[in-house]
């Protein structure tokens, strides 16, 4: 089964070396490391994942991110994280992982049947 769940190199970079070693086909020596870019489009909003890029270090990653992802004033702040430091949940465990929330509709306000006359609630 392991063979089949093709463990990808993306979004699971903690396993990157392992995955690369397993297949033995990827030679990334000499390549600048990969960085994930997060951009805050304006003050008051969260940083949001914009994409990725290669850079030799964090400073260069931020400068490259400016050129690649904010050519049209898309951002006021940039975060960069080396991709190998991102750890992701496993999509094959999604069913059990999010199952606890499935049967708890009472967590939503619409669950409660209240009279129409009730105002401001």
């Amino acid at each position, binding site marked *: 089964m392991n063979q089949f769940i093709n463990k990808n190199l993306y979004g699971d970079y903690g396993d990157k070396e392992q995955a690369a070693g397993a297949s033995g086909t990827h030679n990334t020596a000499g390549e600048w490391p990969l960085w994930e870019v997060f951009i805050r489009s304006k003050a008051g909003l969260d940083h949001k994942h914009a*994409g990725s890029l290669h850079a030799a270090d964090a400073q260069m990653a931020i400068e490259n991110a400016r050129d690649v992802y904010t*050519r049209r004033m898309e951002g006021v702040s940039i975060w960069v994280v080396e991709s190998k430091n991102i750890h992701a949940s496993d999509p094959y465990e999604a069913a059990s992982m999010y199952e606890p929330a499935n049967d708890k509709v009472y967590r939503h306000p619409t669950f409660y049947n209240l009279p129409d006359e009730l105002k401001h609630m």
Partner: protein
Amino acid sequence: MTVHSFQEHFDAKIDNEVMIEPRDWMPDDYRKTLIRQISQHAHSEIVGMLPEGNWITRAPSLRRKAVLLAKVQDEGGHGLYLYSAAETLGITRDEMFDQLHTGKAKYSSIFNYPTLTWADIGAIGWLVDGAAIMNQVPLCRTSYGPYARAMVRVCKEESFHQRQGFEIMMTLANGTDVQKKMAQDALNRWWWPSIMMFGPNDADSPHTAQSMRWRIKRFTNDELRQKFIDVTVEQARLIGLEAPDKDLKWNEERGHYDFGPINWDEFWNVVKGNGPCNKERLDARKKAWEDGAWVRDAALAHSEKRKARKENKEVKAA
């Protein structure tokens, strides 16, 4: 899960228009086809900078120059979005460059034609970017998440490219006789190669059915080509230019323009490497890559040295 159920799960997602994300299981052929399609698209953006870059220093005004610079920079950016998307499928950037430089990977044949006059810059923006937009807009809804997201970004930026190209053509077409002639000449030379950008006829495009099934292609080559011709013929007339096809005729019954036969021999010839500029383009790419090697190495060495120095300092402080 068994092999079978992985496939079923994947098929169900495709059928229900659910996006496939990098860590999801996908059939090997889907992965391979996507890598080929996305990297080919990325290479086209990068090589596409060359014919236009030729005119940056010769743009007729500061405004045109600033616009062209911004457009070429966008093409570079588009290449980078797409390379990143392809990397999520497990291929490295260097592997893709290697495939481009060794001729194993293709890029759009259109960029193997030369840019002889300033009007060619107008024709490229209007026709080549116009054809690219026809192709790309449906890909914003393609089944592979990172690809679709990259395409949304690309399409948002691409529309200025087409407008600036049309504006160049419009200005020339409204200019002196010589300028108008120059615009018509550019249209004559770029028309057929642009039409060929949509690829072979559906009957000769064996992968179309599978790609449509996977939603990595949403319209056939011929559908997109027809759509492009229908809108572009009218645009040309609007500025007093004529597409160089004597068979162009509105077909009331079909609700489309009929058009003349396409010279597929020329198309395949250029694809196989015998276009006017194939060698020049590839040589330029290889030269840029090789000449830049010391910069990449130096930046990496510098960052490693700084990292080591920092670690040293931390050890001493502890």
